[in-house]
């Protein structure tokens, strides 16, 4: 029985939700759920969880591109069948995890994975750089200011040793979002790669009439830069349209989201901003937002060398300078942001000074500062 276009509503099934998770649990998880006592990393990418019952669950974590084919998924299934009773899961950072009920099964799995070229790198645990959370970019979205998968591949290639080792001061969480919508929720990452536009939207007077509700387009701008205006379209008709006050635009793209006739993407205008020092966990210090330290780097496919170098530099300086168990943001707070710029050699620009809402709270209202080369 299959879908019948003539009777679309015939025995239609809806609202059944996702499959229940439990059916996919490996036996050792079923048996020990809620009984776990502690965990330990055996080696990068491999950890054991030990249950009150004495049972052990060995987890092998495998890096994945996130943008993956069903062929690759099938291969993942083959591996699961061969080593893990067909069970597996994906992490919140898009890594693949196999869970084994005995230590003996670990090495064979590792060997198998290793035998398959660079498709299944093991790592991403502990004081490492795990997988880079990211979004669609040029592969699927309409508003990106940069690509996602390409940039991430370029970065992870360069940072690969940090994925397979656990020698950083603490976890470093990398994320990319290809526009200010920040689908990657990069706004609280140790290092955030953010696609940014830098040119105000164009107005397509030939298309706007059918396409956009002008009041919504006008209301969409947080800075009131979009105003009603008359214009003449290709057909020579005078139409109701909008205009943009470029001086007030900060390129958030919200108008384009609301009105397809206001594209702002541009080969030279678009690029990448780097934000650092965010964290999500409540561990030690409170969750914090990432701060913009590099306002713009150009889009340079296929390997975005400027972006890769900038990130590598930050990671290396942090690795050398921070205390152990100290996240990047905690390190910056301790040494002071002036020292972050001093030590990384990243030029401080006026773009890093907040001038949006709540900005005053970010100004330095004390005489407590350190003398760096910035102070003439």
């Amino acid at each position, binding site marked *: 029985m299959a879908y019948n276009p003539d009777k679309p509503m015939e025995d239609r099934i809806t609202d059944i*939700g996702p499959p229940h998770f439990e059916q996919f649990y490996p036996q050792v998880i079923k048996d020990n759920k809620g009984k776990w006592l502690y965990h330990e990393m055996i080696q990068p990418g491999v950890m054991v969880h030990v249950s009150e019952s004495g049972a052990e669950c060995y987890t092998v974590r495998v890096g994945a591109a996130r943008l993956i084919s069903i062929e690759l998924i099938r291969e993942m299934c083959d591996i699961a069948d061969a080593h893990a009773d067909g069970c597996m899961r994906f992490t919140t950072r898009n890594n693949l995890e196999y869970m084994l009920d005995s230590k003996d099964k670990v090495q064979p799995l590792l060997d198998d994975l290793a035998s398959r070229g660079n498709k299944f790198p093991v790592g991403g645990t502990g004081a490492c750089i795990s997988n880079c959370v990211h979004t669609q970019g040029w592969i*699927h979205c309409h508003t990106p200011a940069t690509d996602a998968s*390409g940039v991430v591949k370029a970065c992870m290639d360069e940072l*690969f040793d940090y994925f397979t080792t656990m020698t950083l001061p603490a976890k470093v969480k990398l994320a990319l979002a290809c526009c200010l919508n920040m689908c990657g929720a990069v706004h609280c990452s140790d290092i955030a790669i953010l696609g940014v536009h830098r040119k105000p939207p164009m107005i397509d007077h030939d298309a706007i009439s059918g396409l956009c509700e002008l009041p919504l387009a006008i209301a969409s701008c947080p800075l009131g830069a979009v105003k009603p205006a008359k214009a003449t379209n290709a057909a020579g008709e005078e139409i109701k349209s909008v205009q943009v006050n470029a001086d007030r635009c900060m390129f958030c793209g919200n108008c384009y989201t609301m009105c397809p006739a206001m594209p702002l993407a541009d080969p030279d205008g678009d690029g990448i901003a780097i934000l650092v020092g965010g964290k999500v966990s409540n*561990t030690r210090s409170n969750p914090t937002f990432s701060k913009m330290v590099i306002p713009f780097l150009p889009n340079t496919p296929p390997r975005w060398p400027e972006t890769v170098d900038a990130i590598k530099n930050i990671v290396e300086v942090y690795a050398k300078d921070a205390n152990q168990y100290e996240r990047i943001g905690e390190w910056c707070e301790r040494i002071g942001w002036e020292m972050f710029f001093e030590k990384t050699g990243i030029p401080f620009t006026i773009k890093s000074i907040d001038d949006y809402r709540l900005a005053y709270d970010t100004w330095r209202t004390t005489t407590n500062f350190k003398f760096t080369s910035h102070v003439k």
Partner: protein
Amino acid sequence: MPKHDTPLLDELESGPWPSFVTDIKRQAEQSPECWDILGQLELSFVDKITHWKHGGIVGVFGYGGGIVGRYSDKPKEFPGVAHFHTVRLNQPSSKFYNSAKLRAICDLWEKYGSGMTNMHGSTGDLVLLGTTTANLEPLFYDLTHDLNQDLGGSGSNLRTPACCLGTARCEYSCYDTASLCHHLTMHYQDEIHRPAFPYKFKFKMSGCPNDCVASIARSDFSVIGTWRDDIRINQAEVAKYISGENKPNGGAKTDATAFDMEKDVLALCPTGCMRMKGDELQIDNKNCTRCMHCLNMMPKACRPGLVKGASILCGAKAPILDGAQMATLTIPFIEINPDNDYEEIIEVIESIWDWWMEVGKNRERVGETIQRVGLPTFIKVLGLDPIPQHVKIPRENPYVFWTSEEVPGGFDRDVREFRAKHAQ
């Protein structure tokens, strides 16, 4: 064989990290439209700009979400991706699968789509990337009938809930995140599939304050496990950390210097509520904020208490439009009770929705609504007592609102009476 030259993309086939380019090429052997994915992406690499049109509204009958429409702006050059819609499958909680299920999904997607996926989307869905409008209904039919599973959310509705591993494989978890996540997902199928909200609304659940699903940063309704009694300390294991027998931080740092209780734990405890009395570790629990650091550093020695529950935080979101918001602590401690189908949680959710659906503006996230009306109003709406836990600090400005009822004599006064006493 390749349909387009992709010299730039080809450069991404080298390097140690798995190459999505190699992967797409491999898939292309089966699903030729993948050549056009590569072709159009190569063009974007050359042009440094996307070649997708502004999304179009497509979907399956009766649902307002689950599909994201997408069309190429170069359909002639790349007919295989002229339509390239996304299908969001609601993932199983904590993203556990078995090979049978994944193979079934692969077969389904081989039949109806490009063969490319995102495992997983940022919200948590299993994302199938690229199909045509014509394929949507048949795909949905097979999905519900043969795979018996369903789509996830998109649009102004409840988005696909997501959670961390929780008790399934984590010793820190203070409640069963997967069960709560699944229950709410099932309970709110209608809200997921049929947009009725001012804007999107997201649930995320983490089992402890480490917050491995980043709920505090990106969910309108964040449920984070915690406990309200004392941290369980195993002094014997404490000794083993000090002696070096146990690896600090669960061995998460291979080059960690020899464990130093003072430096690595006590000094990093944000509240300074820990101390060593001889070789006994003591925690002044009433001053502990359950930040997890000592548990993280000594998983064998420190465990959450036994009176477990969760904190509820509301209103996290990305920066568009007024700047990003972290979720705000709304209910410091709530019981997580499967036996009454999480009644307490449901109650909170629905009082938030009832209010937000009434006062929320179009495309206004609940966090933005809270900002607009003020936290005090939100607290009143939920019928909560205002408590210091709601704030980092009490207000610094003196601009307090009072109502006529609160002030003796009320607001109405006769200025002439006043003038009688006070010459102008």
